[in-house]
């Protein structure tokens, strides 16, 4: 049993928990994830590690209330317990001195990229972050990611804050000005896919942190298999980071929807009821 030390609601349906897990906190690295099971009848789902505190022995997770498990999780608060909490899983993010790095994030993934951006900053990269949220109300992490970024661009879908539009427009402008050496994208599969399609044209290396369905998270079941450069990989142990230009996005998106009633990705991938949106 893993105690929830602290809960904060970041935006409607987006919550942050700090969980007591000293063994994981000792080893967590940027880009890694945990697998959790909320209660004795729960399923196992992966959640990115948003932060850690080694001395306090805590791990921070941020999640979007979309399905059965995240709804159960959202019903908990400080002092409650999560039945199982396993990690740190996956390979750490690849950190190097790339030059200028664009961090392209949408949805609740802002939290996930923060430790990666911090490590990139420490590695003396210049960071330009682009955050996309549907509206001002659903935006969070502006201060946190902004504090690590040399430049922060915010786009809202309804134009209620900063720039109105989609994530690709500011990205394209930066790429056109040849200001970007390396891109990291985390978010819904459709956003990462479209980001990859945009950067491919400019030949800028782009890393995506993939989010397939997982079960054990340790390489045992293979449900998270993704096709990368024509080869089947297990995202849980070979990833979750892969070269976004080599990922078979059709396969990833279809496999993500195995248990959804509407399995066909829609035009521009903005599927009705998609767990990612």
């Amino acid at each position, binding site marked *: 049993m893993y105690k929830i030390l602290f809960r904060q609601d970041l935006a409607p349906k987006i919550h942050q928990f700090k969980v007591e897990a000293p*063994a994981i906190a000792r080893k967590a690295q940027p880009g890694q994830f945990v697998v959790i*099971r909320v209660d004795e009848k729960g399923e196992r789902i992966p959640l990115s590690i948003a932060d850690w505190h080694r001395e306090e022995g805590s791990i921070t997770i941020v999640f979007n209330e979309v399905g059965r498990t995240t709804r159960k999780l959202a019903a908990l608060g400080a002092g409650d317990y999560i039945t199982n909490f396993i*990690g740190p899983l996956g390979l750490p993010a690849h950190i190097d001195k790339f030059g200028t790095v664009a961090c392209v994030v949408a949805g609740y993934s802002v939290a996930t990229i923060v430790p990666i951006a911090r490590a990139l900053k420490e590695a003396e990269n210049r960071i330009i972050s682009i955050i996309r949220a549907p509206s001002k109300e659903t935006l969070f992490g502006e201060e946190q990611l902004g504090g690590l970024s040399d430049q922060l661009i915010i786009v809202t879908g309804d134009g209620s804050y900063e720039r109105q539009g989609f994530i690709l427009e500011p990205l394209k402008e930066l790429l056109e000005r040849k200001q970007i050496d390396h891109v990291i994208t985390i978010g819904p599969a459709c956003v990462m896919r479209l980001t990859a399609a945009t950067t491919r044209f400019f030949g800028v290396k782009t890393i995506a942190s993939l989010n397939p369905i997982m*079960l054990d998270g340790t390489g045992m*079941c293979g449900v998270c298999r993704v096709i990368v450069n024509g080869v*089947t990989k297990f995202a849980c*142990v070979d990833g979750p980071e892969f070269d976004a230009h080599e990922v078979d996005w059709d396969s990833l998106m279809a*496999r993500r929807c195995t248990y959804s009633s509407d399995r066909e990705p829609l035009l521009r991938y903005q599927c009705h009821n998609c767990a990612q949106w």
Partner: protein
Amino acid sequence: MPKLDLNRVPMPRQDPKVRARNFNEVALGYSAEQALAEASRCIQCPKRPCAEGCPVGVDIPDFIKALRDGNMPEAVKILKSKNSLPGVCGRVCPQETQCEETCTIAKRGAPIAIGRLERYVADWEQANKQSLNSPVDLPKPTGKRVAVVGSGPAGLTAAADLAKLGYSVTIFEALHVAGGVLVYGIPEFRLPKDIVRTEVDYVTSLGVELRLDSVIGKIDTLDELLGGGYDAVFLGTGAGLPMFLNIPGENLNGVYSANEFLTRVNLMKAYLFPEYDTPLRLGKRVAVIGGGNVAMDSARCALRLGAQEVYIVYRRSQAEMPARREEVENAEEEGIIFKFLTNPTGFLGDGRRCVRTMECIQMELGEPDESGRRRPIAKPGSEFSMDIDVAIVALGTTPNPLIAATTPGLETTRRGTVVADEMTGKTVKPKVWAGGDIVTGAATVISAMGAGKRAAASMDEYLRTLS
């Protein structure tokens, strides 16, 4: 003296039509009278070949004699002095190729049903626990600490034996339940999870500490365990990495590895969805690819989950199937359809990226290959296809590379198995022993237990040399 009965007492089983739709145990176990009648067939021969055939060296004639004499506590004691998981072994050991194969009576008729008697004794203990007054006498603690990585049959056996020798033992288990393949792989109808829980509880009752949710290689490496106060490590992480066919369409939705399918069903209890949260997609027609026990388990689970047609697709013939004969018979009785000498060559989707068709080719058997079995060869022009909703790939597993990758000095083979001495389990890395599927590749529960037992003895020998 009455004439020796050459036939064993049959095991009562659930009716095939009924059991094909439920997850309750198939074999129902002997009654007291049946157990006594079967035990009475044992001639207590002086050569005791059965005990020699047992990988963990259970004193088989002695426990059978105690059972026959009506001294059940004694039978339990004899059994458990060598085997910490008798309820498991009585159910899933391939006795027909071990103790029962060497039974003296087997030369004239059916060998003593040793596995069924073992199960009877284990179940009797479970039912009469309160009345049993036999706490295990543990020796004085040695003050030395041992880490066991993995709580499957090898790890549990090594941990129990080391605890009985006075060592302070911690088991690290990556999953949220202890038991390894006994909980995620073998289905409820063949091995009820209550039995596994009871036997794990027995191991912890010996003072073994169990740490679940602990992925060694991630929270701590082997070297960190050794540097952090453990005097020796036993590695029993099994063979958990599923093999795939590497044919087109294998990543379509509806194509499962047997590991995923069985983990969903057994560990996560997807068969009780929506009471339990883990979902499973099934459909009407299910093809299971492979010929081992895992393939039988997968097919029989699919049937119980409501599939209408379940096929076992195997590229060799029935004679080469590695599954236990008993399990193949159970599967046949329940209505599983076998397609031998058939090899899948690809999967096609339905346009929505769900598998719809499995393309196959027929095979014939050629000369024996390195495994000694006749090699299957594709028959040109014999291509055909099967309409399916789900495919389950049960081709076997290889060891998870996580620990080897994070442990310098540990030698592995090309197949990913850890190199260890067969008799002692010693690896080339000091203070590290290994046993079970991580050394042999996927094998049986009892061979893993035998390896755990031998390693525990070798570790004891080493630990005694420490001041």
